[in-house]
Every structure is written in C-alpha cells, then in structure tokens.
C-alpha cells in the first residue's frame, strides 16, 4: 500500500518537475513547482517526518510559492510565453543531464547500503531539543546562525527591493 503510494508520488514529482522546467508560461511553471513541492511533502509524510513535511508545506508551498507568484505578477506579463531555448542547447543540456544521471545512478546502484530494519519515530520535541542543545550533537550554533541569516535576508530583501534608483 505504502509502496503504491510512493510510486504515485514519485510519478507526480517527476512529471511535474519536467513540466516545471519546460513550461513556457511562467505562472504555470510555478504551479507545477507547487505540485512538486507537495509531492516532496508527501514523501516526508511517508518517511514519518511529519514536522518536516509540515515545514515544507508551510514554508515552501505556503511562503515561497506565494512570493514567486507575487513577483511574477509584479514584473512579468502573465500569459506572454517565455523565450524558447535554443535547440542545440536543449540537446546539450539534456545529454549532459542524462549522462550525469547515468553516472550517479550507476554509482548508487553499485554501492551497497547497510539498511537497518529498525524504525524510530522522530518527534518534534526531540527535534527541538536537538536544535537547541549545547551538547555533542547539538545544533545551537547553526540554529542561531540561521536565525541571523534569515533576519539579514529579510532586511536585505527589503533594502534591495526598496531602492528606487533607475538606470539613466
């Protein structure tokens, strides 16, 4: 049952990500990306990382996608199709991607992963403790850094977007 579910999600992700990078309409591209992100959240659910899935949904699907949509509405005329990439470039990039994919998959499949059968559920409480722990496996420093980074990004984004200087 879970397996079927996984395959279903996998197909959704693959199809929509291909469509997201190929669609010539920006708005559609964003919506396809939204579906991909929903699929990713689904995988997190399947992996029993409920908190992570929630974060994915709220931050990505809820925040970032809306940001994109707003920006597109600000800057681009919706419905005007994007320029089509050159054929040779598409071919080259496609070949490169397939080649890289081949190498990566080859590497993955020829490596033997020691999968463990045990499963432990991760609770939000544990996660929070870990994030704020000063101990050996604690993440307090990156956590604080991320906080500052987010603040800086916030201020920076406002400052950049606010500047009204025009060229010439």
């Amino acid at each position, binding site marked *: 049952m879970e397996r079927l579910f996984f395959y279903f999600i996998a197909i959704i992700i693959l199809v929509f990500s291909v469509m997201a990078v190929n669609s010539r309409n920006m708005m559609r591209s964003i919506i396809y990306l939204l579906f991909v992100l929903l699929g990713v959240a689904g995988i997190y659910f399947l992996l029993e990382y409920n908190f992570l899935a929630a974060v994915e949904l709220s931050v990505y699907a809820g925040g970032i996608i809306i940001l994109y949509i707003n920006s597109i509405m600000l800057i681009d005329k919706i419905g005007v199709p994007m320029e089509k990439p050159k054929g040779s470039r598409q071919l080259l990039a496609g070949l490169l991607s397939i*080649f*890289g994919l081949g190498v990566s998959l080859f*590497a993955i499949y020829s490596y033997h992963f020691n999968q463990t059968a045990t499963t432990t559920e991760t609770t939000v409480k544990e996660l929070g403790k870990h994030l704020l722990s000063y101990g050996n496996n604690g993440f307090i420093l990156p956590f604080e850094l991320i906080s500052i980074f987010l603040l800086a990004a916030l201020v920076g984004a406002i400052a950049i977007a606010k500047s009204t200087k025009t060229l010439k």
Partner: protein
Amino acid sequence: MDLSYTVLILIIPLFVFLLLGLFFRRIKAPLSGYIGVAGLTVTSLISFFVAFEYFFKIGMVDGAYQKIVAFKFVWLHFTSTMSISIGVMLDPLSAVMLIVVPLVSWMVHIYSLGYMKGDRGFTRFYAFLSLFTFSMLGLVLASNLFEIYIFWELVGVSSYSLIGFYYEKPSAVLAAKKAFIVTRFADLGFLIGLLILSYYAKTFDFVNLTSLTFIHNLSGIGTTFIGLSVITWALILIFVGGAGKSAMFPLHIWLPDAMEGPTPVSALIHAATMVVAGVFLVARLFPLYYFIEGGIALDVVTVVGTFTILFAAIIAITQHDIKRVLAFSTISQIGYMMLALGISKYEGPEGLGYMAAMFHLFTHAMFKALLFLGAGSIIHSVHSNYMQDMGGLRKYMPITHITFLIAALAISGIPPFAGFFSKDAILAAAFEHHKVVWFTGWFVAGLTAFYMFRLYFRIFWWNDPKYEHTPHESPKSMTIPLMVLAFMAAFSGFIPFSHFVSPDYVPFSEHMEWGLAGASVGIGLVGIILAWILYKKENDLSTRFALAFGLFYKWAYHKFYIDELYMFVTKEIIFKHISAPFAWFDRHVVDGTMNGIGNSTVWISEKIKGLQSGRVQDYAMYFVSGATVISMILWFLIK
C-alpha cells in the same frame, strides 16, 4: 707605521667620479673641471708622498726593497690562502707607477681645462677621467691577481667610454666598440690564464705568487699540454690579455682607431698609462715568467715585442694622420718595453732588461704624453688631424714647438734627453741576450727618429698652407702641462733607475755601454737627417721616395691589411660560415618551435574563448559536466 692612508689614493678619484657622474646635470662646465683637477691634485700629492716614503724611508730592508701590503680588505674568502681581497700593495713597481699615473693624469686634467672648453660633455669627460684614474691606480696598487683583473676591466670600460666620448660620431662609436671587443677578447685569455694559475697555485696574492720558494714548488705540479706545462700556458694566456691592452701584434688594431677619442684621452690612456698595463702585468709576474720551465713564456713575450716594434714603426712612417703616427709609435715603444722584459734575467745587474722596461715605461709616459698633448694643441688651433693641412707652425706656436721638439728628441734617443737613457738600457740588455733582437731594436731606433722628425718637420717647418684662421698658441692651461712634461722628458733620464727597480728588488748599479750608445745615437741622427732632407722644405722627394718602395709602401700605408684580414676572418668566415647557420637554426628551429607553441596557443584560445562566455548558465554546465566526469573517473579508479 700605519700605511692604510694609501687607500685615499683610490678613494678620492672614485669620489670625484661619483660626484661628477651622479650630479652631472647640476655641476656646470668650469666647476666640474676644477673639482676634477682639485681631486687629482690631492691624489697626486698623496701618491708622490707615498712613493717618496717608500723609496727613501720604509721600502728598503736589509738592502732589498720589500713588498708591503699597506691595506687589505678580504672580500671573498675561499681557503686559508685563497681569497679575493681588495688591497693596496707597495713595491718598487707600484711606487714607480704611483709617480707616472698621477703625474700624467694630473697634467691631462689641467690640459683638458683648456682643450675641452665649451664642449657639451665637459662634466662627463671629467667624470670618466676620474673613473679612469681610479681604475688605473687600483690596477697598479692591486695586491692580488684577481683585484688586478677587476681594475683591468674597469680600465677597459673607462677607456671604452672615453674613446666613444663623441658618441654622435659614427666613427667614434665604431672605434670604441672595436677597442672594447678586441681588448675584451684578449681579456678572456687573461681570465682563463688567471683561473688556471690560481687553480694550481691556490692563491691570488702577489706576495705568495712571486716568492721564489713558492715558484719552486709550483714548477713541479700540473699536467702538460702540447709539450708545455700548464702553468706556462697560463702565463702565455695572461700575456695574451696583456698584449691586448698593450696593443701588441696581432691585437694592436684597436689602438690607432682609439684616436677617435679626445686628444687628452689619447695622451693619458692610449699613450702613457693604460696601454702599459700589459707591460706592468708581465713585470708584476716576472719571477713566474722567468722561472717556470726556463722562461718559455718569456720568450713568447720577446718574440711578440720584437716583431711589434718593427711592424708598428714601419706603419708609423707612412701615416698622414698625426695622431695615428703617434699611435703606431706608441705600439712600437711598448714593444720595446715588452722586448726588454722578455730578454731580462733575474738577479743583480743581469736584471737590466727588467729595469730598462720600467725605465722606458717611465720616460715614455712623459714624452709620449707630451707628444700627444702637443698634437692636441696643434689640432686645437689648426682644426685638422692631417699633416697635409699643417706646416710652418713654429712661428705661430712657439711653446708647442719647443716642447714637441724636446719630446721628439727624447723619443729618438738623442742625449741628454730621457729616451736616450732608457732606450740605451734596453739595447744594452738586448745586445747581451741575442744579436738579432738587438739589431732589430737598433734599426727601429733609426726608424723611430725618422718618423718622429718627419712629423716634426712636416708640422713645424715645410711651407705654410693657406690657413683659414691664423693658428695661435694655446691657452696657459694647455701650455703649462706641456712645459712640465717637457721638463720631465728632458731630465727624467738622469734618474738612477737601477737603484730603485730591479727584478729581485735588490738595487744595482748600471754601467753605460758607450759603444752601443754611440751606435744607437748614430742611427737616430741618420733618421733625423733623412727626415730633415725630405721634409724641411716643401718638395716631392718624399713622394718619390714612397714610389720607390712601391708595393711595400702601399702595404705599410694600409697597415699591412691587418684590419682587412680581421674583417675577412670575422665577416667572411666566422659570420658567414659559422654564425649564419647558427642564426638560421635559431631563427627557424628554435624560434619556430617557440612561435609554434605561441601560435598554437593563440589558435586554441581563439577557438575556445567562447567557453568564457560570462554566462552563469554556461559555467554551471561546464561545472556539472566536469564534476560528473571527474566523479566517474574517481569511481572507476577506486573500484
């Protein structure tokens, strides 16, 4: 007694050179001359004082003169005995040179105040004169062979820059280049000889090199090469260097051309001081030359010297440029010195030749500098180097006339002038050694008198040509040095030289050989009378005389085509058949390879410069493909 003040003799000219050389834009014309003269006056006085002290106070110990190292600064230390040091060594040889070099240089400095007046390069001229004086004094005072080599090259450089003083004149540039290349080529011999000698001797110091026990030990060692021991070869190579500087045949070709320089320079460098450096060098190493393998190297010196006096004297007769006549005369007279060194023996009165060489060096410096300065004075007023443009000058330039006459009599060996005594000593020594050498020397004495008085009569008698400006006597600054040098040329022969200089440093008494002296005075008079007949009044006797010699005259006039021979060897043989293939190889193979590499780089970069598109997307693509390929390779390697 502390003698380290002698180093001032070197420091003062060097300081003057640096002062004038570095600030030559600031220090204007007359001032720089006064600075140069003042510096040299001090140097000269110190030098004379040192020479006096040496000869009469401190030099003599137990009846023999000592080698005194007055100052020594070790520069490069190799072994306990072998080091390159900068030092000052006093012995009779350097003490004599301490009189010759500063005196002539002093006179030339004063003379140049008048001669170079108004020249654009006045300050530069004095700077180089000081540099030369510094290097020459360093050369004569050097305490070891390597120091002599350093100053030897410095002398060469200052000579180069003074010959090429009028660097706008192509002929001067060519002459400077020629002088530099020829002497440099000879110096290569000196350097190789020096290295061989010091390799076996394990020292550079003259005090060691010339001590008899040391030479005795040295004569045993070393391999042989073509029948001669390697030390002999080293000495011959060192003599090659000396022959280059002293313009011995066949390396004499640069000296006549060097007359392109200003005349005071010719007087100082190319007559009195630098060109006798070769003689000085051989004299310096005389015990080595004499004792190693029975003096084979010394025989080489004799042969070269003897041939050179004859060869140069014949050419001197035919030349028309008065400075060239004097140049060939210089070559010939230096040949006398070499010859005298070559025939000398070591001990006691048998060292007459050595003494005579130094004596002749001394007197020759006086009268030849006088001749050149006189010639400069003439050129200064006539504005020509050629005797065709001269004649009857005795009326216009009385002081120059008298002093020139004294010098001419001195060089012709007429008593009681200086040249008589020194030349007579040489001939006396030669007579004991080998009759052929003596005969050549005696004959050339006649030739010398002839070509000198040909010059004298042609310049001061003959007939007046039409002068554009009436010639006039030169200013005081030029005539005073002439008079000083004339005094020296007239009376320096009475110095009892054998009491001061001898190969074993033990003074001896010389006896006049009146028979030989009479013979040489006789042939000198014959030469003078012949010149009087041919050149006193304007006539065509000399032309007829020249025609009688025909081909031989033409040969001699063209200096026996030695220059042409050199040009042929260098241009036709070396350049065309050796250098040209090398040049071709260099241009086509070496350069071709290099250009090929360069061109292919350009070609490839032309083709791949599209890679540097400046687009992030392209770079991302290269990055991903590169990362993929590398990870693939790594994967297969690790597997």
